[in-house]
């Protein structure tokens, strides 16, 4: 498809701007000539019609949740309620400047305050900061607080952070950015943290452990309280990567499990859309002893019931982002929580887990299932059996595109060969699940009978399989005329 630059015709424009209604001065008299641009930036020149058609055509080359089933493991691609988009766009939320005085933004502050209360309740934490812009950002914030906590206690030597080999890739990267040293531990045969391994690893240098629960295999770490005891008794703290919170909403809280810090992904469990890669929102909650370290400001309430931004937080790690977080995303998630209520959120977890177990049960006959036990909201299949026939997991993923499905997460977690991580979410109906099962079975049959067809997939998409090596070897990252 043509790029917008290739459609440009000199003289066209997509905007009408008002005339200057104030007395004008020569630009050079206002700005020194050497500061001025000689050539205008090479932006396209198109009318609004062309812009509208271009971006609409582009949109039709994309797959969204409303387009179809999106069982991308650990990403929780649930339906994004339409009304929430309207709520975030209310003038009283969208047309508010972040530096307006507190008395003119009481509605925004009240919403943030109540969202902190809601998420604290859902996670079993004392306070939640809504400042982090995404899950990985929440991780970084949480780890900084853990480090600040130890430093404040005169234990700044605690720099080791334990991370299981099944963890999300952001975990070790966040730890590195927070100046921590990563110690990887291997998962046990049952897909869970090996307690013996953990006991051997913890010592007086440990700042903490990062865990996802349920973990990236879709398995609940049933020994979580023992894990907490082991880490706590060594003086470390527990960080919960809340990416998989969808499976436990209303059923269990990270606080009860013994976690000290947790982040949530509002764009996952709380139905705010992913936007093609953001904006997200990664609020981070902490137990009481860590609240002094939360980023500033926090929204507090005065005796007269008015809300204000509290910046006077001497032990705070500071700020990790301008202003107060991705407020517009928080509005959507708050609207979702209000619509669902406590029973609704518990129902979310139940149905997400039911849908996942239903899919797992139906598919395990056709694909290898390395960890055969009750799963939570997602499970991991292996395409090892198909690989023996010369068809790898990527081929299976691409073939699913032909059947009209977004593929599952592939090749993650790294500890499962030819991994296919499937997360149906609670918003899919039985008919969709059954049709997806049929497609997966048909692909398994194709692998037996006509493997070439799968190997060369996709056959129906707007472009075929793309050459990733070429893209990386000779990077073409911008359009050149």
């Amino acid at each position, binding site marked *: 498809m043509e*790029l*917008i630059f290739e459609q440009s015709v000199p003289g066209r424009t*997509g905007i009408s701007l008002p005339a200057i*209604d104030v*007395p004008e001065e020569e630009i050079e008299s206002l700005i020194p000539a050497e500061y*001025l*641009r*000689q050539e205008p*930036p*090479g*932006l396209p*020149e198109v009318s609004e019609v062309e812009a509208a058609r271009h*971006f609409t055509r*582009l*949109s039709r*080359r*994309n*797959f*969204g*949740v*409303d387009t179809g089933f999106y069982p991308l493991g650990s990403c929780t691609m649930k339906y994004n309620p339409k009304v929430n988009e309207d709520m*975030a766009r*209310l003038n*009283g939320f969208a047309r508010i*400047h*972040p530096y307006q005085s507190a008395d003119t933004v009481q509605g925004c502050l009240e919403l943030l305050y109540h969202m902190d209360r809601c998420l604290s309740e859902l996670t079993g934490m004392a306070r939640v900061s809504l400042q982090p812009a*995404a899950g990985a950002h929440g991780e970084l914030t949480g780890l900084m607080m853990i*480090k600040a906590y130890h430093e404040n206690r005169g234990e700044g030597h605690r720099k080791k952070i334990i991370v299981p080999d099944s963890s999300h*890739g952001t975990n*070790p990267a966040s730890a590195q*950015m927070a100046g921590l040293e990563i110690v990887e531990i291997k998962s046990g045969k049952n897909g869970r943290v090996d307690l013996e391994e953990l006991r051997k690893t913890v010592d007086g240098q440990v700042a903490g452990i990062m865990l996802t629960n349920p973990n990236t295999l879709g398995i609940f770490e049933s020994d979580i309280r023992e894990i907490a005891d082991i880490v706590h008794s060594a003086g470390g703290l527990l960080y919960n990567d809340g990416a998989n919170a969808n499976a436990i909403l209303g*059923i*269990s*809280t990270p606080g*009860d499990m013994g976690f000290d810090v947790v982040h949530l992904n509002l764009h996952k469990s709380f139905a705010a859309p992913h*936007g093609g890669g953001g*904006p997200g929102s990664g609020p981070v909650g902490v137990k009481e002893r860590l609240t002094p370290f939360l980023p500033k400001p926090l929204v507090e309430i005065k005796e007269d019931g008015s809300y204000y931004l509290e910046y006077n937080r001497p032990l705070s790690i500071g700020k*990790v*982002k*301008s202003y107060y977080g*991705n*407020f*517009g995303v928080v509005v959507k998630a*708050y609207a979702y*929580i*209000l619509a*669902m209520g*406590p*029973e609704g959120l*518990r129902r979310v977890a139940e149905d997400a887990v*039911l849908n996942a177990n239903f899919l797992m*049960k139906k598919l395990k006959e056709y694909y290898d299932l390395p960890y055969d036990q009750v799963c939570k909201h997602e499970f991991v299949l292996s395409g090892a059996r198909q690989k023996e026939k010369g068809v790898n997991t990527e081929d299976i993923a691409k073939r699913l*595109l032909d059947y009209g499905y*977004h593929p599952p997460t592939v090749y993650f977690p790294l500890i499962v060969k030819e991994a296919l991580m499937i997360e149906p979410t609670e918003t899919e109906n039985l008919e969709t699940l059954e049709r997806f099962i049929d497609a997966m079975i048909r692909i398994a049959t194709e692998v037996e009978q006509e493997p070439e067809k799968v190997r060369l997939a996709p056959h129906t998409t707007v472009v075929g*399989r*793309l*050459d990733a090596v070429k893209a990386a070897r000779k*990077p073409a*990252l911008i*359009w050149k005329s």
Partner: protein
Amino acid sequence: MYPYLPVTSEERRRMLETVGVESIEELFVDIPSVVRCKGRLNLPGPLSEMEMVRHMKALAGKNKNLDDYACFLGAGAYDHYVPSIINHILLRQEFYTAYTPYQPEVSQGTLQAIFEYQTMICELTGMEVSNASVYDGASALAEAVAMACQATRRGEVMLSRTVHPEAREVVKTYSRFSGVSIKELGCQNGLTGLREAEERINDQISAIVVQNPNYFGALEDLTKFAELAHRHKALLIVSADPIALGLLKPPGETGADIVVGEGQTLGNSLSFGGPYFGFMATTEKLMRRLPGRIVGQTTDSEGNRGFILTLQAREQHIRREKATSNICSNQALCALAATVYLTVLGKKGLRRVAELCLQKAHYTYRSLLETGKFAPTFTAPFFKEFAVTSQEDTAVVNARLMENKIIGGYPLDRDYPELKNSLLVAVTESRTRDEIDRLVKYSVITK
């Protein structure tokens, strides 16, 4: 019943049967009772859609919004006009409900839009490579500092005090934990102290960081800072306002090595501080140190042009603890808004918006000074924002403006105690002459 949950009780029963369990409870046997929620969570709801909308509108109604108030408040977030088409494109579900484009064959829309975005950012900044966005301008600056330290293998940074205070705070937070040492550069007449920089630079400094137009709206002499940095084998990091780049020389032409900035001004609503996006661009030389996602052009097996996430060896899911950054989700939809914005404005429109800002800001400045109640805080040239010192307490001025449906400037002494009674006034193309004249009038009326 819940409108977002399609599974009925009857279906639930059948599905449980298929799974081979008696009840939903059995699917949670692996969660020990000691970690189970006891009783009902203390949360609001459930509310019907009507009730929820009423509640949210009541909350929104407690805020004073910019459709009812003329806004002269800037300080990093600006009331630029957002063309209607942008929201319509953003609400295409294929864009807003999609995930990160990991499957390029069904994500060409997002991928091509990012490729176009990268091109536009490079055109604006005069750089060679751009990523697909980061969280906001402040985190972009923090990432740039980390990148400069990795590239130069040096551990100190000179950060101008005229950089946005919140961005400086974010840089300091990131640096405190990664071990980078921040040296703050003072300012004179609202500009970064060049002589001070010359005196203090040494071979441990990885980068000089300046903002242009800076926090006070004033224009820095980037060329001089680039020369100084390069003379000491350090980098120049520039944080820029992309609207200003419609008129100003691209930082790349002045010698910048990394250019970042807040992208809110490009077609994104103010939204009480977010979501915005940070842009980040650099030279080909530093390409592989750029954090975050990058889209590249390639071909499929039949030679068709297509786009794909590339250079992923830098990223967290491949390199894990050796990644250049942990950024995963970025602000793709906000970057899409910017792409549509820059498309409809085009080559001439962006310049026109910049000219409108410039002329209106200078008219406002002159008019305020003519009242005799305001003095220039600085004399450096400025773009769309400037500082003036009031004879009156700024809180009194702003309160009076608010009564007259005007949101006044930002009191600078909150971040710069020495600038008592100084107001930072921002004037975008959205402000009319009538609004400006009212600002001037109510700024000086005394009771």
